[in-house]
């Protein structure tokens, strides 16, 4: 069934369709419409379960982890300062091996204050052990939440689905809502082998000696690495059931491209338009969208970029003293590539500034000119600023 809705509401629908019985949340702009919509459905009985209205995001995550350990599916949504406050519990969630799913609406971090799109909030959490997806639009966000539960509940690791503030969270688009029976077929009930067991009273999260800690973290890495293959498989099954899929990366017109632009999130949609235009004008430009960020799909990216010589990574995020974060990761993934491509880092859309097709065109033309490698990121600003 097709409906006109915002990215936030698309995510709320996904949570309802997944029959998530326990939600714990705290309001923060621009995520709040997810929390409100789910509360509305809980109050009307359309959503069967409990909404925990916690006093902070930190407690929301604590409650999700704890409830998950009783064997139930859980959800929270957050953004910006909220996910920063959660930081301690994000590590705890992956350490507890619980399949909590969280939607994050990418909003800049203070100071100074602002509410606008910027991916630094969730990218700053890249080392917390969460699976991370970055979505282009509401439809993809809805579908990714459903996929995230399938994956998380198979590897017992938490998963985060991110959309950008306002550009996706508040923008209304036509979304194809899956039928409940389809989702039920696709997503089996959750089962957690290490949930609380009254007959075998175990002790969860003990103090462990060094060797055990190391062993435990290694086991987590093996599970996390398996997500690259699993996410592809789940996406294929999703395609079979729902008739659409995304892959973990999406290459577009890269086969003959002189320059490949790499994007994540909503800038991808704009890049699709810009690149089509440039192609019409005779420029051989390709596009690579990175959808899965953790685990980082290095092999899939190397495969997609095989033979390409110039790459331009556009980041709506910035690690001070480092650079664009997707670019850092991509460079690391390409370090052994026999093609030794030149990888340039472009910073665009920081603080929710608009990234128009002309700006992507400027990036492409700029890369064409470059013959020497460059470490430092190139900031794309509006003309005259």
């Amino acid at each position: 069934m097709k409906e006109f809705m915002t990215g936030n509401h698309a995510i709320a629908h996904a949570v309802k369709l997944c029959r998530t019985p326990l939600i714990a949340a705290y309001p923060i702009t621009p995520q709040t419409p997810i929390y409100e919509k789910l509360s509305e459905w809980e109050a009307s009985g359309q959503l069967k379960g409990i909404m925990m209205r916690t006093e902070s995001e930190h407690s929301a995550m604590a409650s999700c982890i704890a409830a998950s350990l009783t064997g139930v599916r859980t959800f929270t949504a957050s953004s910006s300062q909220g996910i920063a406050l959660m930081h301690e519990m994000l590590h705890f969630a992956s350490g507890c091996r619980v399949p909590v799913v969280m939607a994050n609406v990418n909003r800049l971090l203070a100071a100074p204050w602002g509410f606008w799109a910027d991916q630094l909030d969730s990218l700053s959490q890249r080392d917390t052990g969460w699976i991370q997806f970055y979505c282009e639009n509401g439809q993809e966000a809805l579908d990714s939440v459903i996929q995230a539960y399938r994956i998380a509940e198979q590897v017992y690791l938490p998963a985060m689905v991110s959309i950008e503030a306002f550009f996706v969270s508040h923008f209304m688009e036509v979304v194809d809502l899956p039928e409940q029976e389809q989702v039920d077929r696709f997503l089996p009930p959750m089962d957690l082998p290490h949930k609380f067991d009254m007959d075998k009273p175990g002790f969860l999260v003990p103090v462990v000696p060094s060797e055990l800690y190391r062993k435990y973290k290694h086991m987590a890495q093996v599970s996390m690495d398996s997500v690259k293959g699993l996410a592809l498989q789940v996406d294929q099954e999703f395609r079979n059931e729902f008739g659409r899929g995304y892959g973990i990366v999406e290459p577009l017109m890269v086969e003959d491209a002189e320059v490949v632009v790499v994007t994540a999130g909503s800038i991808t949609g704009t890049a699709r338009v810009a690149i089509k235009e440039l192609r019409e004008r005779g420029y051989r430009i390709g596009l690579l969208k990175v959808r899965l960020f953790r685990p980082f799909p290095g092999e899939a990216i190397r495969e997609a970029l095989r033979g390409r010589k110039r790459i331009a990574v556009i980041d709506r995020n910035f690690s001070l003293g480092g650079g664009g974060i997707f670019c850092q990761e991509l460079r690391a993934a390409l370090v052994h590539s026999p093609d030794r491509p030149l990888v340039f880092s472009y910073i665009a859309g920081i603080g929710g500034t608009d990234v128009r097709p002309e700006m992507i065109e400027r990036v492409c033309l700029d890369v064409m000119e470059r013959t020497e490698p460059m470490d430092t990121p190139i900031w794309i600003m509006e003309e005259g600023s």
Partner: protein
Amino acid sequence: MVLTEERPNLLRPGHAACAGCGLATGMKLVLQAMGPRTIAVIVPSCEGAIGGVYPYTAYGVPTIHSAFEIAAPTAAGIANGLKVQGITDIQVLAFAGDGGTFDIGLQALSGVAKNNDDIIYVCLDNEGYMNTGIQVSSSTPSFAWTGTTPKGNPRRKKNIMEIMAAHYNPYSATATIGFPRDLQQKITKAKGIRGTKFIHMLVPCPTGWRTPSDISPELSVLAVETNIFPLYEVEDGKRYTINHQPRRLPVREYLSRQGRFRHLKEEEIEQIQRDADEEWKKLRYRAGLSG
């Protein structure tokens, strides 16, 4: 002790508490009254150390060692997780120290009490950060020595019971190991009430209080009989009941037994006496008694 003879011991022998630890005795009494259909939450504190290192555990019920400030929302998450599955015969118990309750966990506890989530929260109050080696908390009494108040604590102990009462939660009570029957009765009562139940338990700590290891129960009794720590209940934030009529011994008898108060000047002891008298008067007033 009524229950001791009847119920299994759910804090097993071999735990790692210091000799004469009042906190371990308190946990044992609480767990015994809770019974085996309990899921327990502990947080970083002596509770964590007492539990032992993997693969050993002293806890006889399913237990999670959660993070410092989240005993309450962890317990609430478990309680609600069980509730949505229709499981009604398991109680969720949170143990946190005074640091985890009065200080770093206060906001989270307040959030859970506001929602009236169905948990029993027991604050094991040894009046300082003892697991990290005796530092001041907002539960440390006036003038007490700690490693971070070498000249004595300049501030009074926070009144956590009044803070809880301000949430209008169904049940809060004080308890201490020197009155085991009263303590276990309160746990049993809390088990029969739905919502957020709070037990403020004073647990003498030989290591942190600088006391011999064989006087913890005695000190616990003295704390009550000197009115340093009266035994009472608060229901729905308004009905106060005093559970024990104290002998009103001078506070000096309690203070003089502890190394952490050894340096006290005469006027400081008098100040503590005045504070205890004043608090007792307030409590009697709240309980509807005069004078």
